[in-house]
């Protein structure tokens, strides 16, 4: 199975916590990610939500998604039309939630990528390859185990379960 994505890089710093992605207090209004997306990353940059376009890719520093395990921090990113996040490391709860919802968390070096660059991602069982043509960069990402690739290509844990692709032990 192979996944290919192309999009515009949107740069973020290190240690972007889930409260920065979507503030816990906004959850008082709704849990609907399509309504919450207007507050996406508001604590980092109040103009971000308006400037984001479907197909954009988040390109961050280390420890992306740290803090709370709240899953709206993943669904709100997907609702904004973002399909993948690139970062040298993720908080493990964010990483799990991303995979379960079909948001692709790619662990790779991100220092050379610049805001607005066109970035191409290709991944399969053998590895992940990230290309930034403008900078002449070809970056290798950490490969996913086969079971993760099948969850991601199903579109997340929900369709993965629904399609009956898992066996009853949830076994890889």
């Amino acid at each position, binding site marked *: 199975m192979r996944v290919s994505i192309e999009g515009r890089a949107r740069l973020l710093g290190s240690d972007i916590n889930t409260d*920065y992605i979507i*503030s*816990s207090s906004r959850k008082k209004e709704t849990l609907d990610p399509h309504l919450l997306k207007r507050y996406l990353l508001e604590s980092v940059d109040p103009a971000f939500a308006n400037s984001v376009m479907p197909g954009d890719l988040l390109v961050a520093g280390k420890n992306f998604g*740290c803090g709370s395990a709240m899953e709206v921090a993943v669904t709100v990113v997907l609702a904004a039309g973002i399909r993948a996040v690139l970062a040298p490391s993720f908080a493990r*709860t964010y990483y799990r939630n991303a995979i379960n919802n079909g948001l692709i968390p790619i662990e790779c070096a991100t220092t050379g990528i610049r805001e607005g660059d066109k970035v191409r991602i290709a991944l399969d069982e053998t590895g992940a390859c990230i290309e930034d043509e403008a900078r002449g960069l070809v970056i290798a990402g950490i490969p996913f185990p086969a079971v993760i690739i099948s969850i991601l290509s199903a579109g997340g844990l929900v369709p993965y*379960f*629904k399609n009956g692709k898992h066996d009853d*032990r*949830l076994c*890889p």
Partner: protein
Amino acid sequence: MTVGKTISEKILSMKSGRDARAGDLIVCKVDHAMGTDGSTPMAIDYFEEMGGSRVHDPDRLVFVMDHYSGAEPPGTSMHAKMRVFAAQHGIRVHDVGEGISHQLMVESGRALPGGLLAGADSHSVTGGALNAFATGIGSSDLAAILICGRIWLKVPRTIKVVLTGRPGPHVYPKDIALELARVIGADGAAYQTIEYHGPGSAMLDLEDRLVLSNMSVEMGAKAGIFPADQKTFAYLEGRAPEKTLPVEADADAQYSREITLDLTALAPQVARPHAVDNVGTIREALGTPIQMVCLGTCTGGRARDFHQALKILLAAGGIAAGVRLIVTPASTEVEAELRRDGTLKRLEAMGATIAPPGCGACCGTAGTIPKDDANVMSTANRNFKARMGNASASIYLASPASCAAAAATGRITDPTDFGEARQ
């Protein structure tokens, strides 16, 4: 020759029925799973979308309403949804005002030596203080557990933290946790377990170990585990119905890193805005004005925390003018103890606001929101910008004693100024 195992490798071997080693992807049977009102409503949606019809084992599940007030939306509608689902499937519910999920998991004997605990909230790692592999998950993982009682996990590598020496006056577990956050960093333990060892760790009471396990996730850890000992078993007496299987690390277990911390040399610490690892000593931050102080949360909301704070406030002569002190016990058990011994009455007489047990003001979903541009000092675990619901506020994290010293003076103050006595 086979190499020895860490506590995590041993627990996850038992739960997966195979020889689990760091790096292995395994499927484990979950002993107890927990969902809060912050995560369960979404988990119920996932459950239905995944085609779930019946819950795998309701006796191993619990829902806790701790993040939202039960009196106003959206808590009201989320709670209604949880109650209906729980009643339909026979799941135990701890309702609004009963306390914070992590405290209740410990008090109710669900966090047990050698057990596997998955909670849909990041601070579920708190249960590691009782020698359980306790970890945080999201709503979709909780839904999968509701359906099949299992979870896939990657067996983590382990950082060994060895605590030595004896802490000086007014140095508390929170100070140890903050110092570790400084040394390890906010992501230094990502994907890994922290195991706590050494004489300084054995000396800590169970309530104090909960603080270190709880704060492990602020270093990115998947779990923060203590060995079980007499203090563990004494706490569990009368709480745990199940026979427990305490787990020790092998002498030749493989660790990714070993950190030794001498508690004798440690001074009171503070995490400055807006990162938990932005840590320095209280002395370095002296004089910073503070307008709001919060005592409570799953980190600092147990009886001894309020006793330590009260002692400072009594020595200092009460709360300074212009400071708002919010007191939120972690559970009704804690609240009852504080009522019995007069702690709440005395704090109330000083002008503190006593809030019902729960997450309170910690994450901006309930309780008092800080005023614009306010400096807040809290016994909580996170100081991210906007964490308490106001992006213009600045949050400082410290021990209950240091928080009380700030409440007494209206500025960051060394608690040792109010006498050297330690409980």
